């Protein structure tokens, strides 16, 4: 059953040997040249599966992977019951929102500490599951890197997702995320990354003075 038509992939909710699973199929994109399309779908399928399990090893909850088919570009993974953070963030009390963001920040910090860049940090890609567990999903743009620049871009994407989708609370959320992030990566590193985020913003079109 098609559960969600994503930007990159179709998500099917299926029964897999008695387990409730998500089959994430990276469907061909007719707008792209097949040479470009095939390579993107293949490499993202491989990367996503690899980095999802690396993230889990680093202590960041991600769905369990059951099967990868590189040729047909799909991944079968655990179905995580819960709500996307995007849907609930604006509805929470200020206190709960700050707590949630702080925990998100800690998880991002944990990823970065393990040399993992998520590559698409938005509240659409986080699920609040059972027992308040936060799952990170959509690792298609993820990569291994310890560069400050990559970490900065990651945090910058998160910041912009807050400013565009959760604008009434963007500042409060970002501050809490950075507070959580700092706990995991130490003051010095967090400062470096935040400084780089500012530089990335300044580099943007028509920013600065």
């Amino acid at each position, binding site marked *: 059953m098609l559960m969600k038509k994503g930007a990159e992939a179709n998500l099917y909710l299926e029964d897999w040997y008695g387990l409730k699973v998500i089959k994430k199929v990276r469907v061909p994109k007719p*707008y792209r040249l097949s040479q470009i399309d095939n390579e993107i779908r293949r490499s993202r399928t491989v990367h996503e599966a690899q980095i999802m399990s690396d993230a889990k090893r680093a202590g960041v909850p991600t769905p369990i992977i059951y099967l990868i088919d590189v040729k047909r570009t799909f991944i079968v993974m655990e179905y995580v019951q819960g709500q996307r953070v995007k849907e609930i963030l604006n509805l929470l009390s200020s206190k709960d929102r700050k707590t949630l963001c702080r925990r998100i920040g800690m998880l991002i910090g944990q990823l970065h500490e393990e040399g993992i860049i998520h590559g698409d940090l938005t509240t659409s890609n986080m699920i609040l599951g059972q027992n308040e567990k936060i799952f990170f999903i959509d690792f298609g743009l993820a990569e291994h890197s310890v560069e400050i620049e990559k970490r900065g871009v990651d945090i910058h*994407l998160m910041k912009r997702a807050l400013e565009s*989708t959760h604008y009434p609370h963007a500042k409060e959320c970002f501050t809490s995320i950075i507070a959580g992030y700092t706990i995991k990566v130490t003051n010095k590193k967090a400062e470096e990354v935040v400084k780089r985020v500012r530089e990335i913003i300044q580099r943007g079109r028509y920013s600065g003075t």
Partner: protein
Amino acid sequence: MIHQSIPEKPLICLGIESTAHTVGVALVSSKGEILTNVNAAYTAPIGQGIHPREAAQHHCEVIPTVLRRVIDNLDIGLDAVDCIAFSSGPGLGPVLRTGATFARALALWLEKPLVPIHHAIGHIEIACLMTGAEDPLVLLVSGGHTSIAAFGDWFWRIYGETEDITLGNLLDVFAREAGLSFPGGAVIENLAKKGKNYIDLPYVVKGNDVSYSGLLTAALKRLEEGHAIEDVCFSMQEIAFSMLTEATERALVHTERKEVLVTGGVAANERLKNMIVSISRDHGVEAYVVPKEYSGDNGAQIAWTGILAFQSGIRVDVDKSFVKPKWRLDQVRIPWR
């Protein structure tokens, strides 16, 4: 009692565009009629880009002719105008100041209020007027902008954008370095149609963001290595547009908008248009593309947005009508949406 409605006289705005290579003057009514739209463009010599001072000089020289043609096109006098709108930013400083000086002079001479307009908002509003899009996810692609935005609570919210150069920049700088004419979009599009072989080039998408500077360097390198310019143009377009289409599709799913609107100079490109139409169909949303005539910079985009702004009470005193070379789209409060 019988109510007899007296037809209200529509407002007329004279808009002046002057942010980059185009200087334009247009008159638009509050009914959305374009009464006249006269534009003139500065063209750089082959191998060169826009020189801000020379573009300003060009605009200064052609403004009287442009204004004369505007007046000749009209059966009303300029005193029928209700306000003067001008592109107060963002853009090239000298060019902005030339347009602003002209706008101030007209406002003082005609004794009409002056309305400052953000150039990019102009691209969006003229596209909405022409296509009927109401609350779209906007893909703004031009020399100055490469942004994916949607409206929410008085502001355009940016969901994705370029992290370095714009799509228009990529095309223009490639054209300049390859010895093609400026602006480069149309020339590159034509060459790309003759390209057959795909050459591998870097594809950089970061969430809903794109980065084009690496692609520019790589494309120029391929050219230097002796690849046919048709093949390089073809491959560069394919990569650049695919990146942006992917980012747009991601923003579309995230924002759950029911319309996509492409506007700005690069919206004239057929290949990009087809890609956006393809993802829109796939997600069952309406795709709108600004008509070619209004894709590049033009006076009408400023005049029409001038109407909307003026009706919302936006105006500026001449002595405070500074230009803003740097002015982000997401910093403009929009009272009319």
